[in-house]
């Protein structure tokens, strides 16, 4: 075990994947200079571990700023023998390539009767909570959950970032990885040896018996903090991190809610048609009779993200808003009015 940051764990997974298979290449804007911190050893080109030095320009490719062309080329390369990891930097830029994601990446295998396999990973950072204004603060994973043919991961811990990325690279289907910048600097002990976290398997971040909180991406640590808070008042909260949104580990969610009878879903994406909406519907459809209280979603409101730090703060689930939702489903009185979006 060694202490790794979330970002360091992604870098480690990319290095392992590059070492394990010559067909793995990394393409994206500014990957040669390691601008986003996942393709290098340290601060300088001469540092041990610099990807360009290790793997050369044939496998580490800076691209022009041409997201549609990049995503399409990565798809074509994946269909013909490579296993590209595409670094799209900010997830807001995925929209530039929407046609390629929806019409080519997601559909080609199906339309062509299974002739194509599409072993490609598209990584992007969700830059929310960092006062960058509306153009860089998106959390667009639910839009892509609406496109059959894509697999979607949203790791919340360094260990999952490493293990899920290895599975994503090894998958013969296209995987979109949504990485929250708020998690970049979180650290934990991570196995420095190779390991794989399977796609489609949720993680129980914390066990409990009274309430299930299903939390996504940066809402996971907030949910765990809320759970610890409520534990002091004798409420036992289970926190489930799906980790993979497509395929979703339905059984893990249903099993937990069947046990606790109460569900709060927390995520940083918009409310309408979000992952939380999907998970709530799943539970209501499948195990309505187990529910002892209405399901509560804690999400970002259907609003654009304002720049001013004082305004942006209230937009995403926090430990306070998640705790308030938990109090409601277990019928505890509210502590204080919580201004944020519930």
């Amino acid at each position, binding site marked *: 075990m060694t202490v790794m940051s979330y970002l360091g764990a992604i870098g480690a997974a990319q290095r392992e994947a590059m070492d394990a298979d010559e067909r793995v290449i990394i393409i994206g804007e500014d990957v040669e200079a390691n601008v986003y911190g996942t393709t290098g050893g340290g601060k300088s080109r001469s540092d041990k571990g610099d990807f360009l030095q290790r793997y050369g320009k044939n496998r580490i490719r800076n691209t022009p700023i041409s997201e549609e062309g990049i995503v399409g080329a990565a798809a074509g*390369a994946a269909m013909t023998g490579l296993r590209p990891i595409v670094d799209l930097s900010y997830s807001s830029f995925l929209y530039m390539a929407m*046609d390629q994601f929806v019409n080519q990446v997601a559909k080609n295998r199906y339309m062509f009767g299974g002739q*194509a396999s599409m072993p490609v990973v598209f990584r992007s950072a969700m830059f929310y909570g960092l006062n960058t204004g509306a153009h860089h603060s998106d959390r667009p994973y639910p839009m892509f959950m609406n496109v059959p043919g894509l697999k979607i991961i949203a790791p919340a811990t360094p260990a999952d970032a490493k293990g899920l990325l290895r599975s994503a690279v090894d998958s013969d289907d296209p995987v979109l990885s949504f990485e929250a910048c708020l998690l970049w600097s979180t650290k934990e002990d991570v196995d420095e040896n190779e390991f794989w976290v399977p796609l489609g398997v949720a993680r129980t971040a914390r066990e409990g018996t009274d309430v299930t909180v299903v939390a996504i991406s940066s809402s996971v640590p907030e949910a765990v903090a809320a759970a610890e808070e409520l534990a002091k008042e004798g409420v036992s909260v289970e926190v489930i991190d799906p980790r993979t949104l497509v395929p979703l580990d339905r059984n893990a969610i249903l099993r937990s809610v069947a046990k606790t009878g109460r569900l709060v879903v927390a995520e940083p994406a918009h409310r309408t048609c979000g992952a939380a909406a999907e998970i709530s519907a799943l539970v209501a459809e499948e195990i309505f009779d187990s529910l002892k209280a209405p399901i509560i979603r804690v999400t970002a409101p259907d609003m654009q993200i304002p720049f001013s730090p004082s305004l942006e703060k209230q937009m995403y689930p926090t430990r306070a808003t998640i705790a308030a939702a938990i109090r409601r489903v277990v019928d505890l009185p509210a502590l204080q009015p919580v201004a944020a979006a519930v």
Partner: protein
Amino acid sequence: MAELARDTLREMQLRMLRIRAFDERASKMVKRGHIPGTVHTSIGQEAQVVGATMALGTGDYMSGNHRSHGHPIGKGSPLGPLMAELVGKATGVCKGKGGSLHLADFAVGSLGESGIVGSSIPIANGAALSSKVLNNGKVALAFFGDGAANQGVLYESMNMAGVWDLPMIFLCENNQYALSTPAHTVTSGNIFERAAGFGMPGIRVEAGQDVLAVYDAVSEAVARARAGDGPTLVEVMTYRYNEHSEGLKLGTDYRNADEREAWLKKDPIVLFRQYLASQGFSEEELDGLQATALAEVDAAVAFSDASPYPDLSVAFDDLYTDKESAA
């Protein structure tokens, strides 16, 4: 012009005849409801298609567009599974999941036709990227129309192919119309000249109804790509005889009759037949090619007719490589 073996010349004519016969039959089948939906024929554009596809090797890659049957036929894909695909049968080349717009036959390097104008251009570019990274000597070609030539992704792709010296050919089938829109009314400057902005050769084949002229131009581009000298834009001037799609009836006469007459006089199959006759092919042999193509199409239709429709469960296969991931 390179001296071509008689077998190659014969094969060129046969492939053009196959496309003509296949598309004429498909057109009838659409009108009779035998093929669901519609199709876009390559009738009139056979020289442009076959000149390009025969300049490629079987191992080379290609992507295409909605005018979609000629490309795989030109690349050597067998007709039966193509016809079965158009009808929606289980034996279709895409198991009945793609249809006319989405033909693909990976066995001959056909990475797929596309219903979205311009969308498959970067797919071929990516295939060229993998050839480059894997150093396997393959080249890739993207077919697209004069209409698609105004999609931004073409220029993103040309830039990337240029800066990376990809073994790539951008092949613009300029049939001078995008549906009802004359190319010159929506296209600033000449398409082939846009290559200069990316530092790559741009060539226009004016004699686009002459299969050998197309073959020569594309062969040169292929040789350049294989030698590691990067991409080429080839614009081929041609004309479609039929309406944009079969069964489509437009109220306005956007193409004038004289223009069509003039192009009909330059029919690629007739022109090449004359050339072959001048090269000593007998009338009998040339008639035989025609008969062969028609018989192959008859056999393809018979194959399709005899094939079952897919089992309903097939609709839920092949979304992912593992079935469990599908909802």
